């Protein structure tokens, strides 16, 4: 009886075991696939409209770096699959796409390659979904500096306005002292970036050189086609120096139109966004001697690594990279290093090890860049100012920014803004 019972039990056990084994055998490849399946990274950027070239270069740079990562085995063994969408530069569209990339496309990491207006919208999506998010283009300082906005899962992997302003201000003040330029005027695009950056830049110029006085301002609209009224106002105001953070097609139109008034021979011009290949190669008659911060040029930092990266990009896409390109490439560099350190591609684990992570980079001032732990923003990237020449390398006599000075003044700025 017992034996018979045991036999019956054995048969049941056998059947159960067989069923379990069958399920197990069928499920095993799925488990294996889950462990090795590709990881989707979602990216919204601007692929149409007037800023499309920057968005396209962001996509190009990411794809170039992802190819390298995948060829080397992927992100912690998982091949990266990029899902890239066009926000057309509209913040609400950037937010909608980011949400969709996670909820519908199954992306596990987000790259927010938007301008500032879009970045703040995507930041709220990151807050809501808790997804690891890398802001790769927004330079508005508050995005990472304001503690109220800070998220454990969001990082800024790009320049920050205040860093550029400190370096630019110190450089401009030095030139102003040497050439006795006391009367300054500004002309920048009339939106948050233009207003904030100009105010910060000029505050550092006057910080380093109290003799400087702003005698006039002009605020053209973003993407304004005609700068005649701005140019005539500048001629009327007769400043000795001019600061502008016009960018892209706006700065080239301004230069082209300023040329016919011979403006740049009369006024010492500081155009922070001039030294990017998009602008440098588009202007047909680039004046000599315009002061500009580096956006992306392959000769600054003047290292073989940076030159090689710029040349590789050009060889692949038949054009030079942009400021947004190097920033997005850096995002992939950080992800790769973090995955190696965490031995995982899990977003939360990556976020944990990314805080304070320092990596070797072609774009580093000393060959390294860091995601500073305290505010999860990139530091250590090369910042410099030089003057334009009409032919390659387009910008020469670069003066390198001092990160020690940047950190000191940034800390003061944070206190002033109640961010510290």
């Amino acid at each position, binding site marked *: 009886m017992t034996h018979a019972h045991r036999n019956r039990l054995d048969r049941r056990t056998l059947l159960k075991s067989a069923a379990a084994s069958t399920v197990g055998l069928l499920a095993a490849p799925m488990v294996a696939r889950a462990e090795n399946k590709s990881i989707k990274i979602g990216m919204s950027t601007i692929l149409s409209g007037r800023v499309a070239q920057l968005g396209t270069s962001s996509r190009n740079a990411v794809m170039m770096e992802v190819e390298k990562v995948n060829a080397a085995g992927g992100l912690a063994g998982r091949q990266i699959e990029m899902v890239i969408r066009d926000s057309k530069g509209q913040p609400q569209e950037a937010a909608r796409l980011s949400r969709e990339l996670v909820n519908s496309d199954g992306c596990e990491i987000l790259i927010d390659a938007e301008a500032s207006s879009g970045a703040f919208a995507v930041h709220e999506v990151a807050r809501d979904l808790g997804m690891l998010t890398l802001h790769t283009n927004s330079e508005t300082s508050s995005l990472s500096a304001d503690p109220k906005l800070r998220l454990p899962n969001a990082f800024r992997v790009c320049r920050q306005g205040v860093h550029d302003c400190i370096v630019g201000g110190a450089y401009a003040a030095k030139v102003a002292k040497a050439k006795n330029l006391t009367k300054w005027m500004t002309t920048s695009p009339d939106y948050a970036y233009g207003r904030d950056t100009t105010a910060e830049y000029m505050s550092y110029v006057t910080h380093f050189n109290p003799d400087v006085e702003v005698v006039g301002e*002009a605020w053209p609209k973003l993407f304004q086609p005609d700068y005649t009224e701005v140019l005539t106002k500048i001629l009327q105001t007769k400043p000795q120096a001019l600061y502008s953070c016009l960018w892209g097609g706006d700065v080239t139109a301004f230069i082209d139109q300023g*040329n016919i008034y011979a403006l740049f021979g009369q006024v010492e011009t500081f155009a922070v966004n001039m030294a990017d290949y998009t602008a440098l190669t588009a202007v047909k008659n680039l004046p000599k001697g315009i002061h500009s911060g580096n956006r992306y040029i392959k000769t600054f930092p003047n290292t073989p690594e940076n030159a090689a990266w710029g040349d590789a990009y050009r060889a692949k896409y038949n054009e030079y990279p942009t400021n947004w390109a190097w920033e997005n490439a850096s995002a992939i560099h950080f992800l790769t290093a973090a995955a190696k350190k965490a031995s995982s591609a899990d977003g939360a684990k990556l976020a944990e090890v990314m805080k304070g992570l320092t990596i070797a980079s072609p774009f580093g001032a000393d060959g390294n860049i860091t995601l500073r732990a305290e505010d999860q923003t990139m530091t250590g990237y090369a910042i410099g100012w030089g003057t334009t020449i009409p032919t390659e390398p387009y910008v020469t006599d670069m003066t390198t920014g001092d990160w020690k000075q940047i950190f000191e003044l940034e800390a003061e700025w944070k206190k002033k803004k109640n961010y510290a």
Partner: protein
Amino acid sequence: MDLATLATCLSSTACIVTQSTGGLIIGMLLFLVAAGLTLIFGVLKVVNFTHGSFYMLGAYFALTIYQVTGSYTLTILGAGVATAIVGLVFERLFISRVYGQNVLMQLLVCYGFVLIFDDLVKIIWGVEFKSMGMPPAFQVPPLFIAGGVVPPFYLFVVGVALVIGLALWLVIERTRLGKTVRAAAYNPSMVAALGINTGYLYGLVFALGGLLAGFAGALAAPVRSLTPGMGFSILIESFIVTVIGGMGSIVGAFVAALAIGLIRSFGSLGFPLFTDGLMYLFMVLVLIARPTGLFGKEIA
């Protein structure tokens, strides 16, 4: 508001010359675009939202022609003619099908083609902005007239725009073709009854509008960034000019464009944060005083 700067400027001949030249150049380019727009509306009663796209195409045609020929004269003529052909084809194939239909249908067709033309530009010339560069003949220092700064290129642009405007006025007011066009604007059925092919006439008017927008694009190309969608901003300003001048009035477009140019130029000194607002304020004041615009005719 910086009325002191404006007052200082108005007391200085140099400043008046500089600002007036700036106002003239803004106004003349606006006039060329607005003249085509108002002509098409006057005759065809179509609010041509694609007109900004014609301006954009003119600028891009200019870029290519200049790169190929190196001649700026050929560039202006070629860009004008090429845009006129686009206008003609567009009218014959598409706009001619919506004459007399609901205005929303006309707007829909026009808006659809704004998007199509933008995409065509992206496909042909790329998404990135382009710069044509200044022709060598104009790469010269500015002139100083009564102490004011006057770029020779702008003198050229103003001169060409004036010649084109005068020629247009002569054609419309002093030729048989012009009389027919004006008659068609007033009573198309009667014109058709007299044996005139109104379809051909309408195509011609659209081509003329395209020609003017093409000229404007070519004249602006050396100093403006060329981007897909660049026609939109000038379209808005051209509509303002058209409304102020009176829908359908070329003389009105000329006067309004000049007024807008000067308001922008001097307004940027006295009201630096309200320059655009001044333009709209002027429009509101004109419409309160004359609801049909400065030279518009009462609608029967």
